[in-house]
């Protein structure tokens, strides 16, 4: 009665196609089926945001999406944002401003922050705290996370200006 679903989706620009049980959650698809382990499992109850990815232009907690809902979707994870040789400005800023301690929440933080800066390229500190409120840091390193996002915003705006 629970026929497998024929799933096609794009993850970090690469098309994926497979059969999956309907109860498979997107976070398991990414981590266990596709070996994309940047998005983490923290609380698994849609509170902590460690599993945050971008799906069809929305910041989404991948622990609370069934694979059928993601059929046909375009997904971006931290792996799709930068590489060790060419870091995303947010990744550079987190490194520069000590925006991480244990690092467990960082992929979710950066993926969410990227979407936040896309919607609001020049956020205030308050905008950032509100816009990042779905991501928890158990090291409580929020001060430097906010500082990193502010720095990345300035960097990205400067780069954009220089390009124009």
């Amino acid at each position, binding site marked *: *009665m*629970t*026929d497998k*679903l024929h799933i096609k989706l794009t993850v970090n620009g690469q098309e994926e196609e497979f059969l999956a*049980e*309907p*109860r498979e*959650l997107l976070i398991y698809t990414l981590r266990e089926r596709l070996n994309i382990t940047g998005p983490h499992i923290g609380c*698994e*109850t*849609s*509170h902590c*945001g460690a599993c*945050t990815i971008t799906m069809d232009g*929305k*910041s*989404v*907690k991948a622990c*609370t*999406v*069934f694979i*059928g*809902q993601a*059929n046909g979707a375009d997904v971006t994870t931290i792996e799709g944002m930068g590489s060790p040789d060419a870091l995303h400005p947010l990744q550079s800023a987190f490194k520069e401003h000590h925006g991480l301690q244990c690092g467990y929440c960082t992929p979710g933080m950066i993926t*969410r922050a990227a979407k*936040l800066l896309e919607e609001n390229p020049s956020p205030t500190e308050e905008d950032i705290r509100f*816009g*990042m*409120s*779905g991501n928890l840091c158990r090291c409580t390193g929020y001060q430097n996370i906010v500082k990193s996002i502010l720095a990345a915003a300035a960097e990205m705006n400067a780069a954009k200006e220089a390009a124009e």
Partner: protein
Amino acid sequence: MIPAPFSYHRPSALTDAIAILSEHGDDARVMAGGHSLIPMMKLRMADIPHLIDLQDIPNLSDISVEGSRVRMGAMVTQAQVITDQGLAHAAPLLKEAALQIADPQVRYMGTVGGNVANGDPANDMPGLMQCLDASFTLVGPNGTRAVNARAFYEAAYMTAREDEEVLTEISFDAHAAGYAYEKQKRKIGDYATAASAVLLSKDGGRCSSASIAMTNLSDTPIFSEAASTALIGTQLDDAAIKQAVSAALGDIDPTEDNRGPVAFKMHVAGVILTRAIQRAWSRA
């Protein structure tokens, strides 16, 4: 946390969704954003053999303001409520409330329809719909009917919606009145300890109309006609506000839980309602 197995349906027409509901009855449930239902399925507190994802059904994500009537498809997300300019103009009360619901990621997925249809007394939209005197459109195998929001909620998770019906649209009149949604919660993302939606109109310095509703203070959202009546005709002096608050507290029936004992909730409800009335009046 793996839910029990289920069959997944993703129909592209409303009639198909209703046919699946009719075939499976209580064994089937529709899902909008899934951010109430999926956590319950993961905890195995909800067992749903047939899950019907509504995302491919056309026009359910539309928002329209025609004349003074606002219509929202059931799949309109909380994020849409926050960013839609027409809606923010026609019913700023909703935007003020949506900003206090859950967190950004949940608001991208969570929908107004799911929030009102779920019947969870902790959800914010049902109380807002009491305040706005909204109407819900239900479509089933026997056609379409409208149910007033104030007659929709029967008990926790029990509503006037029949098993084979889908809630497709929410409509209400645009409000010119002063508005406020005040919510006390322990942290971002938490449900309300107490929340209150208030609309007030002012005419010649006196209150000419009032609508007061409350969230998570009974097993259903509460519209307090007595509290609304207590304010009409007054100048919103302290005595009138006290009387309205006292009337509202008489209409609620909170239960003790991890947000506090009954006496605490009654106290918080009074504080929240007072603040909401004062803010709405300052905007009237």
